[in-house]
């Protein structure tokens, strides 16, 4: 179907360099909108821990101090929210998911093709393992050089910049390996199971 022309609409085209970095249907913001479902959890670091679990009941857990002792890296990425805003060159530090999976494996946790991230406040999201490995995902603890604010998912959020940002689960506390791809919070409410912004996979049925 051809879109009708919006009579009189001139729009504000991004510069060519910007346009190339924008997935379909997105616009650039310098802001950092907060669009969480529900109130913001506030978990003190003394109460925080993070764990990996597998179907066999094996798990590996890190306290905040143990998490801080893992190797952290700094990365700069563009991020894309399903609500249409994109933010370029966001700077984070965190532990690569590859690193922490390896550490979990050393404690007997076996991987599976899919994961579910579970978070304070009850949020969940699902991902294929291959979308969080090979240098594509982090457990992020700082944004823009400062400790991650609770509104933006602190103390730690999952960071998966190549997918729509609802996959970058805020307040993450556990990752469970799963044999099957199980819909998380938004995926069960009409949002796409995978969420690739370059294919504009916003809602269930989008292809």
């Amino acid at each position: 179907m051809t879109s009708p022309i919006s009579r009189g609409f001139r729009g504000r085209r991004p510069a060519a360099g910007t346009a190339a970095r924008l997935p379909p249907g997105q616009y650039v913001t310098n802001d950092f909108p907060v669009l969480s479902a529900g109130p913001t959890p506030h978990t003190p670091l003394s109460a925080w821990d993070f764990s990996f679990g597998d179907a066999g009941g094996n798990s590996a857990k890190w306290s905040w101090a143990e998490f801080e002792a893992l190797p952290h890296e700094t990365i700069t990425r563009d991020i894309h929210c399903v609500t249409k805003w994109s933010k370029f060159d966001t700077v984070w530090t965190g532990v690569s998911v590859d690193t922490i999976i390896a550490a979990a494996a050393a404690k007997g946790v076996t991987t599976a093709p899919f994961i579910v991230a579970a978070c304070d406040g009850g949020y969940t999201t699902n991902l294929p393992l291959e979308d969080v490995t090979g240098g594509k995902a982090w457990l992020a603890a700082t944004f823009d050089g400062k400790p991650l604010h609770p509104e933006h998912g602190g103390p730690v959020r999952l960071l998966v910049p190549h997918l729509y940002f609802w996959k970058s689960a805020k307040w993450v506390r556990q990752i469970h390996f799963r044999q099957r791809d199980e819909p998380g919070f938004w995926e069960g409410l009409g949002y796409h199971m995978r969420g690739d912004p370059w294919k504009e996979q916003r809602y269930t049925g989008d292809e």
Partner: protein
Amino acid sequence: MEDPAAAESSPIVHPIAWRVATVAEIVLETPRVRTLVLDASGWPGHRAGQHVDVRLTAGDGYQTERSYSIASPPEEARIELTVERLEDGEVSSYLVDDLGVGDPLELRGPIGGYFVWSVSDGGPLMLVGGGSGIVPLMAMLRHRAAASEEVRRKTPARLLYSSRSWNEVIYRDELARLAAADDSLEVVHTITRAPPAGWTGFHRRIDAAMLAEIAWPAASTPHLFVCGPTPLVEAVAEALVALGHDPQSVRTERFGPTGPSS
């Protein structure tokens, strides 16, 4: 024939296709806000609280998309979108200033399964809104108003609505009419900047004390919906949790202009 109960719980057809609606009527709500009344033939129906994605196309093919909450209740045949012109808004300035009756508007929806309410979900219903955050809440109130008096008495509702000035209260007169005609609906305004002469109502941002006074208590297990700019939603959600409401029962939709709180 589709099972009506299933339709009410999931009236979304997948994939959600783009369709072209036509502007049938325009209503000027406040100096910066207007309502677009749209004819969207084949509209699959929606639930109060859902939204649509709107897509504009310039002559050279340039396109841009934004989301807007549906203001009309599922009982209305025409879809209504109430849009606030944001300062420097690329799409909102077009929708509020340029779009005219008879023009096409490409949209898709309905979208969203979280920030929704139907009378069959029960009450009491507590709605807290700020500025253009009133739009999805108004769809809920209009949907509730279409129910019988008996149903409405079983699902009492309260709206706490924050606006900067009396002139900027969206749907002001309609809210007054709905409340006057319905003993089980209460509408409370707070005006943060310029109240009208003789105003005896709240004159400050929504805070914990105001919510303690106006909101249903946690023991009533109300359905809670909060919508507006992020700073308002953050403050209200936190206050409701502090008042004892289960965090997972506080449904939030944060939109409108973001950035530093004014």
